């Protein structure tokens, strides 16, 4: 494909007077894995639904596969795969029937669907469950089935809204592996998440959304380099400590200090040295831990809040 996979300019979504997406700009190239990272209510799902042509935009420009969702919704949807935030499988039917029915929505010949369904169940490791009803499957299996279903039309673009939320670490790693393979096979991935490790694992490039707006854009590494020091010292305060006073004292140790409910983050380029200084100063801490800076820190510094709240 020539030109971008998706292009948005001043893209806006309003629900009545409420602004869910406030004039955002982004551009996603073919073959990229692109992420929307943000806390609850940031506007990630609203954005994904506009891209997936199930929600008309309230303003701005949007092109998906070079087409305008307003005019070419069905044609775009025919070429896009969608993994929604909430599973919407036919739970009273079998795994196999779910794929057959979904394939028919795309008007694929049954024969073709059978071939693809067999391959896709293999791909998401559900072949042995093909005759089982969906209802009793685990959350991770349902998610994998939803991914298989989203691929039944061989999409050029796959939209994944929080693909691994609520799954255990093992199930998440399996999903990440499958998504990584898809990316390698040339499918453009667009995903939302509020897990920074997921964004770091999967995304070539991402935007951080907060309050309906994009607050930063770049590769995971670039975002960290641009916004945060290399390392972070996490100081867990003693239970009886006065947080405000302790934060004031810690300020002199790092380039920047952020106070959270139960701990204080000291941003520094040399974590071990700073941790040493904190310790030798006789600082009253329950624990001191050094780690590399992450996207979580980028978010905290840009918005003053953590991703989880």
């Amino acid at each position, binding site marked *: 494909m020539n030109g971008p996979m998706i292009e948005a300019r001043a893209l806006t979504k309003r629900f009545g007077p409420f602004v869910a997406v406030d004039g955002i700009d982004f551009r996603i190239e073919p073959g990229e894995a692109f992420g929307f990272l943000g806390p609850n209510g940031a506007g990630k799902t609203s954005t994904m639904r506009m891209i997936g042509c199930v929600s008309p935009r309230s303003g701005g420009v949007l092109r998906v596969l070079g087409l305008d969702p307003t005019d070419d919704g069905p044609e775009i949807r025919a070429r896009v795969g969608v993994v929604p935030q909430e599973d919407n499988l036919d739970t009273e*039917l079998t795994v196999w029937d779910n794929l057959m*029915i979904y394939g028919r929505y795309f008007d694929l010949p049954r024969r073709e669907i059978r071939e693809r369904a067999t391959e896709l169940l293999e791909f998401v490791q559900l072949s042995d469950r093909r005759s089982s009803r969906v209802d009793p499957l685990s959350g991770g299996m349902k998610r994998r089935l939803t991914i298989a279903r989203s691929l039944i039309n061989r999409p050029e673009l796959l939209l994944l809204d929080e693909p691994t939320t609520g799954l255990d670490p093992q199930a998440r790693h399996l999903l990440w592996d499958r998504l990584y393979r898809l990316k390698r096979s040339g499918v453009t991935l667009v995903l939302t998440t509020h897990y920074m490790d997921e964004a770091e694992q999967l995304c070539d490039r991402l935007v951080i959304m907060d309050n309906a707006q994009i607050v930063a854009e770049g590769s995971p590494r670039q975002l960290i380099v641009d916004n945060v020091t290399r390392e972070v010292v996490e100081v867990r305060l003693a239970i009886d400590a006065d947080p405000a006073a302790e934060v004031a004292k810690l300020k002199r140790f790092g380039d920047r200090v952020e106070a959270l409910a139960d701990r204080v983050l000291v941003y520094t380029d040399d974590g071990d040295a700073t941790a040493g200084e904190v310790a030798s100063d006789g600082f009253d801490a329950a624990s001191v831990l050094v780690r590399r800076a992450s996207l979580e820190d980028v978010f905290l510094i840009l918005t003053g809040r953590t991703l989880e709240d």
Partner: protein
Amino acid sequence: MSTPPLLRVVEREALVYARLWRGLAFSTFVQPALYLAAMGIGLGGMVSAHSGRVDGLAYLDFVAPGLLVASAMQLAASESMWPVLGGAKWMRQFHGVVATPIGPGELFGGFVLWTALRSMLGAAAFLLVAALLGAVPSAWGILAVLAAGLCAAAFCAPITAFSISQDSDLSFPLIMRLGVLPLFLFSGTFFPVSQLPSGLRPFAVLSPLWHGVELGRAATTGRFDFAAVVVHVAVLVACIGVGATFGVRAFARRLSA
């Protein structure tokens, strides 16, 4: 060769039905048999003994088409409530459909079409049982299945339009009790509307079920007035039209907001 989106929605519903039909088949045949035995033969026997014919028909012949079409309405009405809200809110499969090339309006249309078809399956079973009991004097009776389908769609379209916009199922039992049940009882199903108090009689004309029952009765008895048939069909088509106008919009509002 491409299949219209509407029919692809019907395919899905038909597959679900095919997977579950064994559980449904029993009630499909047993319910009409019970109704006809109790109303047609039991009650009908008494009616015949006391007052002879009803509208010039044996009571069994009178009540059979009424029950046939009214059952179709009942089925269509309940299928248009819980499963619709389920598709939008509980199970959410409707959201899965509109993420494909199929649009919300087509989903609505396919759903109504399927409900009509499914009601016709039930009506065909009913007709068969009624015919075996000798309650279908005319060969035109086969058209009663169409009357049932039309009547089912006339209820399905507006009720589905309503259901999709609901946030809970609280109103559904009320609709069944205060809407569907009174219509079931007073739309010329069990007795001619001429038996209604004169003040209420004109209201029967407002009941889509009455039009459906009259059509069904015209078919099974073979006695009909062409002009009346045209009016009945027109009223039912109008109900479908109004329901579809609201339904297409309501589906878009709920599923593609």
